[in-house]
């Protein structure tokens, strides 16, 4: 079965996209496959828990946006980067898996969702916007596309500081490829020759909008050539294929110092947010290969007993983190300094 999946997946041969030849046997170690799968499990476990807390009401602050269906694509990217070597992962709203694989502490999302003042954004900004900019995890803003140039700038800084081999990755949805921000940033990274990996998670919808109202090209990878960068397509539901492709793309970025664009096809297996029942999603899409659940697909790679054990560990980790964060206080307006500037002497508190 794993073999069958391999055939469905990996970079599609396509003359338009300058993909390196398909690599057999897999360039991905079983250790990497396993560890990434465990991040996927952890992400799914956490998000399931958050979703049920959200539905129960009372404990989750703000909205809940899940990465369900994108765990392989996102996790593989996060796992192919090296936080300790100065790589950058600019995660978006569906990147729980990638963020954790990259090295974000589990407590960060838990605290953010539960509104703990000890969370990375201290209650000032929310859940999916969390980040640790000085540890290679920039904190996204809502405006789609806006993070791509920021990661590009982080890479420029790396280069100016003599750390030119660091790679910076960021993801983008099919919908956000329509933003001018995305275009300007990818083009700029190509012009500046910076090792940016753009992971296009084509989950077939932008909120309720299907891709035929978003773009008219055959495949979003067709954009790569227009930027003069390398393009890859991958079955975004298959962890092994994703790991192979991102391994190559990250290596290529590191070696050439040039942007790489990886387009993964998959399906958003949740509402846009948990407030959304996604009734507009065409049910036929779930039956297609791209509609598979990446956790199911990857589970087939492993021994069932082991998977259950990992699942239990994930449940335990999540439960512990939630228990800890639930005991932490929310932010206290009385102690909030209300300082938007680092230069405190320029703050006009009293006057405004």
């Amino acid at each position, binding site marked *: 079965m794993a073999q069958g999946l391999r055939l469905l997946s990996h970079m599609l041969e396509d003359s338009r996209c300058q993909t390196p030849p398909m690599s057999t046997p897999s360039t991905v170690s079983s250790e990497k496959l396993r560890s990434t799968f465990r991040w996927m499990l952890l992400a799914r476990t956490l998000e399931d828990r958050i979703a049920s807390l959200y539905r129960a009401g009372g404990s989750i*602050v*703000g*909205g809940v946006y899940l990465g369900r269906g994108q765990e392989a694509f996102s996790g593989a990217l996060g796992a192919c980067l090296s936080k300790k070597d100065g790589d950058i992962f600019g995660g978006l709203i569906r990147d729980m898996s990638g963020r954790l694989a990259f090295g974000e502490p589990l407590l960060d999302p838990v605290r953010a969702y539960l*509104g703990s003042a000890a969370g990375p*954004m201290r*209650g*000032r*900004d*929310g859940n999916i*916007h969390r980040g640790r900019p000085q540890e290679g995890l920039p904190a996204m*803003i*809502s*405006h*789609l*596309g806006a993070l791509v140039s920021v990661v590009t700038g982080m890479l420029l800084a790396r280069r100016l500081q003599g750390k030119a081999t660091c790679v910076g990755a960021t993801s983008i949805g099919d*919908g*956000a490829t*329509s*933003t*001018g*921000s995305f275009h300007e940033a990818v083009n700029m990274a190509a012009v500046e020759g910076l090792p940016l990996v753009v992971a296009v998670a084509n989950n077939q919808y*932008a*909120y*309720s*909008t299907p891709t035929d*109202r*978003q*773009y008219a090209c055959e495949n979003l990878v067709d954009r790569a050539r227009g930027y003069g960068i390398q393009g890859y397509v991958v079955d975004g539901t298959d962890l092994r294929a994703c790991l192979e492709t991102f391994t190559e793309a990250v290596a290529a970025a590191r070696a050439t110092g040039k942007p790489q664009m990886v387009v993964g096809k998959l399906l958003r297996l949740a509402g846009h947010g948990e407030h959304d029942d996604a009734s*507009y999603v065409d049910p036929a899409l779930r039956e297609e290969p791209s509609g598979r659940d990446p956790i199911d697909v990857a589970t087939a790679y492993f021994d069932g007993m082991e998977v259950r054990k990992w699942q239990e560990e994930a449940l335990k980790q999540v439960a512990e983190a939630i228990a800890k964060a639930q005991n932490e206080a*929310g*932010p*206290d*307006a*009385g102690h*909030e300094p*209300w*300082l*938007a500037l680092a230069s405190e002497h320029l*703050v*006009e*508190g009293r006057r*405004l």
Partner: protein
Amino acid sequence: MSTTYLAAIREAQAVALREDPNVFIYGQDIGKFGGAFKATKGLIDEFPNRVMDAPISEDAMVGLAIGAAIEGMRPIVEMQFADFSSIGFNQIINQAATHYWRTGVPCPITLRLPSGGTAGSGPFHSQSMEALYAHYPGLVVVTPATVEDAYSMLLESIQLDDPVIFCEHKLLYYHLKADRLPTVNLPVGKARIARSGRHATVVTYSAMLHESLKAAAMLAEDGFHVEVVDLRSVKPIDTDTILGSVARTGRLLAVGEAFPWGGVTAEVLSRVVSEGFDLLDCPPIRLNAKDTPIPYHPNLWKAHRPTADSIYAALSELVRK
């Protein structure tokens, strides 16, 4: 049967689409899905060619509307949240706002901006952007605070020959209700005395009208009668109505939910002191949100914006000066 603020907005669009074949709506997820807030729910069924889902391209969405308007159409653009209009900003202030003045050809577009804060929405889904747009010549900026105004002013905005920034407040969408929609109403450009009083004037708009009315009710229990002026549109500002009220009360508090530097409250104070200095018995004051981004956590958010309590506190001081 009662109508919500949101239903009024939907209904105004339905009426406009029905009455004028040049009206169309463009925005993300506004078709079958009916919009993030359902302000266009069902409209695509009745008008399949004139309700269109847009790609995530706010700059081009506004540009497209401008082009269509030049050709005689009357587009309505729904921004998914007001905050995302920052992406269409250039097209709004430089292309739409200047078009009539530069060319003599009107540019009748209506930009619907779901505005203002709600708990847990954070820095990028809560903004009140009226001051940005009011600063630029060539735009009309309306800020309905009631169901009736949401309805009648949206209809009027669509009919106006100028680009209108229609700031609809998300906090009012579901809770605010009216028995029926108006057939006649004050036109855009006229303010309304929402509550009469003689001890002080509160000038406000949008969701802050309701906080101000609550504060006024609290003050009434202390024996002070505060007049509350609902601006309805912030460009133009109905200065005469404000001056009339200040002439009666001698005291002025301007309240807004937007950031404190500049903006509507500064403009109101400036006009009153320039044109009605002698009407004032004591220094006029302002109350705005704090000078930081809008916080995500409800604990912080509640302290960031003016509320009935903070307005009450400011007024209590003002009436005793």
